[in-house]
């Protein structure tokens, strides 16, 4: 099945609908598709979750190990994010070495979580200079029907938000095959989640599907959090060859501000349930 060829009439139809504020699947331009979350998909993980938005499906899991800290942050835990955008998920991904899509996705999600201060790295120190907790966040994409970054980002947050510390035997330096009731040390107020807007013609869309994604020529991913009850932006990444005009930026910020009021509490609920 070829997924990559969009006929011209379809592109034109997408633009025609957008000019009237509609999308081919009937959604409004800022509407998300249905979000389904299944937790604890692996009993062998500190946290694991499956998130499906429309038909985009992603698994994410958290595993922890004890390791030596980096020399320049001797009292902080470490954090590493991997993303496997498998050919299983879409014809456009190749088997073997991770392509640029998976590298970019992993890095954006990693940065979003790290820089927001969501994880309290200092509390992950076991013995300064010698032993710290190492957190692995692994993301596996099963199906890509657009907006993989936001879906993976949501899965990542839910996984980290629900992760429990494993039992650690200090004397033997052994991690038991058992979880404590203690959560991974996080700062709930620092949570920020990712929203990607795509530009098609002069419209700005949220939660694009695959067809829309292939028609857009510009995307902007924005990580948004909360500070003093108000919206705060913690990260940004522009992708693709198109450009963002000053007017676009105005509209983007308006959309983000509006949508944040609606989505942020929903995301918080999912992450901290």
């Amino acid at each position, binding site marked *: *099945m*070829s997924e990559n060829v969009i*006929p*011209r*009439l*379809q*592109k034109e139809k997408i633009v025609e609908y957008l000019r009237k504020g*509609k999308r081919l699947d*009937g959604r409004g331009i800022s509407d998300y598709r249905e979000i389904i979350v299944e937790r604890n998909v692996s009993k062998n993980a500190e946290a694991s979750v499956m998130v499906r938005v429309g038909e985009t499906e992603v698994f994410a899991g958290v595993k922890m190990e004890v390791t030596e800290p980096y020399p320049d942050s001797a009292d902080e835990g470490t954090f590493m994010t991997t993303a496997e955008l498998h050919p299983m998920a879409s014809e456009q991904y190749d088997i073997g070495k991770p392509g640029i899509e998976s590298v970019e996705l992993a890095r954006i999600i990693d940065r979003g979580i790290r820089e927001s201060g969501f994880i309290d790295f200092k509390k992950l120190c076991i013995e300064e200079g010698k032993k710290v907790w190492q957190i692995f966040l692994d993301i596996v994409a099963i199906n890509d029907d657009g907006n993989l970054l936001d879906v993976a980002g949501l899965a990542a947050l839910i996984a980290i938000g629900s992760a429990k510390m494993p039992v650690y035997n200090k004397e033997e330096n052994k991690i038991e095959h058992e979880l404590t009731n203690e959560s991974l040390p996080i700062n709930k107020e620092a949570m920020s989640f990712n929203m990607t807007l795509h530009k098609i013609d002069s419209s700005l869309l949220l939660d694009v599907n695959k067809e829309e994604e292939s028609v857009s020529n510009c995307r902007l991913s924005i990580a948004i959090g909360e500070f003093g009850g108000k919206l705060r932006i913690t990260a940004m990444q522009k992708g693709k060859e198109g450009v963002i005009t000053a007017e676009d930026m105005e509209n983007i910020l308006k959309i983000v501000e509006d949508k944040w009021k609606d989505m942020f509490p929903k995301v918080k609920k999912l992450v901290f349930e």
Partner: protein
Amino acid sequence: MDKEERQVVVPGEMIAKGSEFLPGEGAYRDGMEVVAGRLGIVNISEKHIRVIPVSGAYYPRRGNTIIGTIVDITFNGWLIDFGGAQNAFLSVAEVPRYVNKNELREYLDFGDSVVVKVWDVKARGIDASMKMRGFGKIEGGMIVSVNPNKVPRIIGKEGSMVKIIKSATKCDITVGQNGKVWIAGNSIEEELATKKIIEFIVENATINGLTEKVEKYIKGLGMKVDKIEIVAENTDGESGGENDGE
């Protein structure tokens, strides 16, 4: 013809015993037994046993109508992506008017959508033709992708189902056997309603009394259903043949 019971079979499952049965598509003979060679629904017609697929990719047949996109232009024709494993080839000799080898692109360009007939299916490829009436380039409208195995339900017996949709929504509809349906209407509401109706049919394709349910659904959308003479309903997924929605 009697309404056959919908018997689902899995690969390797015995369908019938006896040398009088002939295994057709999707079935094979193993000794005295005729066995399913794929997942699907059994169709027995005068001792001829077939297994009709209900899921999976579209395999082109001679005479099929397909809707696709021009993805390449060669020195003597065009290549059409219709969602199959291979592209279909449309020769310059298979279009209604004479096209000079230098104006291939003017006639059909990259990204153009076409409705064509599958002329020949060979190991090395699929040949298409656009010479007949009702086939050609399509402009405007949108394309909805559905499970190709459900297409017969969208068309209905002798095109009855698609006629109901057309009269209710006032939209132009062309159905490709490859699971691509082209819709063109005068308003977004009509087009989206058409899309919804088609998706409803696909979701409920296996239910008996589908026509009634579809009419109910259409009324639920606030549209009118014209009384169209419906020939006895065929629920086993038989193709509507050539008369498919024009």
